[in-house]
């Protein structure tokens, strides 16, 4: 199957500044792909390269099976720029008509499509107002609507919720879900980790112009674990052997930690503890959050070189030490 996006060693430099070092990516058709990184990591540069707005210094890539910037292919891509600005003197409907015309949408489906995306983005009531009077959030909704016109095979969203309030963000999640259901691949460029964690099938974390981790979210975040606070258990872990078949058990004061546990078996773990006479005060099913992973990779606990592109794909397998350290951090925060 042709990948929605495929790049090899994509590089962009501006003079001596390296905006993107060597980007290797693969986004499958129909998936929601999260492209994460701190500000200045090269995310927007990567998006511009994919769309042919900027030319790569080195490397290569294909979008929907065609070379980067291919004109006909751009008709099958929807794009919400990070710097979204639309003609202030046009109404929302006129902006969408312009984009439908530029995208080459057949005239007979144009009006229906425009109504659909206006409805989807929550702008139907303001469709005939000039965009100059729109709040930033509404402009961003308009940008989303424009990006979704004509059911593109690939939707590239550069920070789609940067100007939205919490309600707007929830809406965007629904909109992206809808786009996926209609068969679009979604390339979501964001530094809002919660958003990515909720939405994306797979993610890549980019730092200093390189992918430092990539893969399915579940693989990257590692196995589930559970922490149980229980008192009244037999000393020295007597009888806890029954828990070992659920995962690796650690006992520290009142806290029992069971790693690599199947989330479905957490009630069994609690039952065993209760069966041993333990009084359960708290059950904290934990998983390394994307934030922990991200901060770990970006703040230098792992240098990009160590966690390099290849290692990144197997980050879950390669990172038990990281998981431990981070796990402790989460526990501390949650307490």
């Amino acid at each position: 199957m042709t990948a929605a996006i495929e790049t090899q060693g994509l590089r962009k430099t501006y003079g001596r500044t390296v905006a993107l070092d060597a980007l290797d990516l693969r986004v499958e058709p129909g998936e929601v792909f999260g492209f994460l990184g701190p500000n200045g990591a090269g995310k927007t540069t990567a998006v511009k390269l994919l769309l042919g707005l900027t030319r790569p210094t080195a490397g290569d890539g294909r979008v929907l099976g065609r070379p980067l910037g291919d004109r006909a292919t751009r008709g099958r891509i929807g794009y919400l720029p990070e710097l979204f600005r639309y003609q202030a003197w046009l109404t929302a409907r006129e902006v969408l008509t312009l984009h439908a015309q530029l995208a080459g949408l057949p005239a007979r489906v144009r009006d229906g499509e425009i109504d659909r995306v206006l409805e989807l983005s929550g702008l139907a009531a303001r469709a005939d107002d000039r965009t100059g009077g729109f709040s930033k959030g509404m402009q961003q909704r308009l940008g989303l609507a424009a990006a979704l016109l004509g059911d593109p095979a690939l939707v590239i969203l550069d920070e789609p919720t940067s100007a939205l309030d919490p309600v707007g963000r929830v809406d965007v999640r629904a909109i992206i879900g809808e786009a996926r259901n209609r068969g679009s691949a979604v390339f979501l460029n964001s530094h809002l980790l919660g958003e990515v964690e909720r939405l994306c099938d797979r993610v890549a974390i980019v730092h200093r112009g390189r992918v430092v981790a990539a893969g399915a979210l579940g693989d990257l975040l590692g196995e589930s674990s559970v922490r149980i606070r229980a008192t009244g258990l037999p000393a020295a872990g007597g009888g806890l052997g029954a828990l070992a078949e659920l995962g690796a058990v650690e006992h520290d004061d009142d806290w029992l930690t069971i790693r690599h546990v199947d989330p479905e078996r957490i009630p069994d773990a609690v039952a065993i503890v209760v069966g041993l006479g333990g009084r359960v005060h708290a059950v904290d099913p934990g998983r390394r959050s994307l934030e922990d992973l991200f901060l770990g990779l970006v703040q230098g606990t792992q240098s990009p070189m160590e966690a390099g592109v290849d290692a990144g794909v197997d980050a879950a397998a390669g990172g038990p030490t990281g998981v431990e350290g981070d796990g402790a951090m989460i526990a501390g925060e949650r307490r």
Partner: protein
Amino acid sequence: MTPRLVLVIAGLTLREIVRRRIVWVLLILVVASVLLVGFGVDRLVTFARADGVEELEIRIGVSQVLIMIAFMFSFVLAMSAAFLAAPAIASDVETGTVLAMLARPIRRADLVIGRWLGLSVIVALYAIMAGLLAIAVVDLVSGHVPPAPAVAVSFLAFQAVVVLTLALALGTRLPAIAAGAITVVLFGLGWFIGVLGNIAIAFDAAPLSGGSDIFRVLLPTDGLWRGVIYGLEPPLVLLVASGGNAQALRANPFFALSPPPAAFVAWSVVWVLLVLGAAIALFRRREL
């Protein structure tokens, strides 16, 4: 080039100028200045007639006033063209509006040509309409009709298109304000060098006139301005000029003995196409 997309962009440009009320500002300015011209010429003619000045002299006086007015209008027109065209692409790049558009299957050439076409239509219509209106008002109050109003306003419109092409091209790489300012300065310089060239001819200073000819080829606005004057100059003045005092008259920046040669007009058309081509090439290489 995709004609459909060029027309979409040209239409967008026209709509922008109407929606942003620029067109109304221009119209109000024209009506106000034409009314003032009418009032001024009317006063001039009335006082002259009351003083018993010969009708022929009045005609010649009015014809020269009309050329002066055309000159001032050509400057206003050049400024308007420069400040409409300079941001046409530059501002869209600065604000990011262009990103969403160019991610669509449109060539950058289509965007540049569409912008140029829309602006050219507006600026040319404005030049022709305002020019003919001023000529009609002068005719109304003085009875003076220049020999070739159509020629005059055509050259006026052509000159404005040259200016807007330059401003648009500079705006593909420079910020809007810089592109507009450079265009206006070059336009003024062109006129000034043209005047110097005329004086040089009058005094037989060949190197100077050669220099002005070169500049006229590099930026044809002043050469086209000669076409405006020629269309407004009454035959009588031309007759006088072809007599003994011709040398001195040629130094007058508001005088043209002959229309711009056909080769020069053809070159001006080629110039516009070359600069437009350069604008496309520059914009294509631009990193967004």
